[in-house]
């Protein structure tokens, strides 16, 4: 009886150890795979007599010509970031002016992305902390109005 009991205990312990190892490895990997491919465009906006929109901003061109963005007529792409965002893992976005982070909060209804964007200005001052739920392919554009009738834009879309 003692030998049988010891054997059973050994079996149970071995099973638990292997199960724990498997649980740590497999589901963790699966959870880490919840991602969204996001594109972030840093744009400089100015008013001018001659309208000019960078060719890389073609996907946003129609929107940039609508109010209130039509306040400006010259839009220049400062930087472009392609990020594969992992759920609840903030990703820092390198900007020409200031800094930003983007976090995939979750994917909603299989077609929407809940995204958090934070922006600090060139002085390190916190400008905005925003969470928006948008359909995949739609845009979230954060506009920071600067002195001299200039604008600093960060546009994000995910799919």
């Amino acid at each position, binding site marked *: 009886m003692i030998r049988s009991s010891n054997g059973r205990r050994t079996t149970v312990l071995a099973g638990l150890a292997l199960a724990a190892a498997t649980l740590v490895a497999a589901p963790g990997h699966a959870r880490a795979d919840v991602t969204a491919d996001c594109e972030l465009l840093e744009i400089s906006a100015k008013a001018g007599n001659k309208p000019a929109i960078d060719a890389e901003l073609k996907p946003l061109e129609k929107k940039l010509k609508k109010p209130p963005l039509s306040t400006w007529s010259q839009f220049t792409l400062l930087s472009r970031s392609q990020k594969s965002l992992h759920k609840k893992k903030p990703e820092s976005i390198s900007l020409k002016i200031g800094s930003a982070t983007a976090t995939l909060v979750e994917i909603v209804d299989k*077609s929407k992305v809940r995204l958090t964007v934070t922006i600090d200005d060139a002085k390190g001052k916190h400008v905005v902390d925003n969470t928006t739920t948008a359909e995949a392919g739609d845009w979230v554009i954060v506009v920071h*109005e600067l002195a001299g009738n200039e604008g600093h834009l960060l546009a994000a879309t995910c799919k």
Partner: protein
Amino acid sequence: MTRPSHPSSGPPSGRSSGPSGLPSDLELMEHADGERDDAELAARLECDPAARAKVEVIHQLGELVRGHLELSADAVHDARFAAMWRRIDGQLVAPPAGVWARLSGWFDRYRGHVITGAVSAGAVAALALILRPGTSDLAVAGSGGHVIDVRPVALRATPEVDSLDTPGGSSTVINLDDEDGHATVIWVSSEDSDPEAI
């Protein structure tokens, strides 16, 4: 060195003293072995150096025989034990040396347990993968990617701002729609910027 006993009383027949009155060899041997306590014999030995020498020789011979027998007995035991140990050593298997040998030995002994444990672990892991929490994300992980439906523009819902914080400034949310899709514009005006410029 014992011999058949005989009655000490009565005239010793055939073993009595010789014709010259000297003690016979048998009497001397019995005396040497302590089997005959005869004062008369002892007195005669005092007067007979040859008989005393015989008794002495008998003593020595007895010691020799006793010692030889004891040695023989010990030799027999040692030989038997040596043979027995040789057989035992031959039947013993050398214990495995080294960590790997011990590990493989352990697995050999508990192979059934390990297999049972592995099967149990697999079953538990499969259940955990199926029932694990956090599956509210309907996007299922694929090979190195994800599945997010990009719906047609006409079917898309307007973006919703869940939270907005603009420390040290004000904000305005504007939704823009066109045939390319929706856009939510979050307009942040700092306190030091000119709101009239909008």
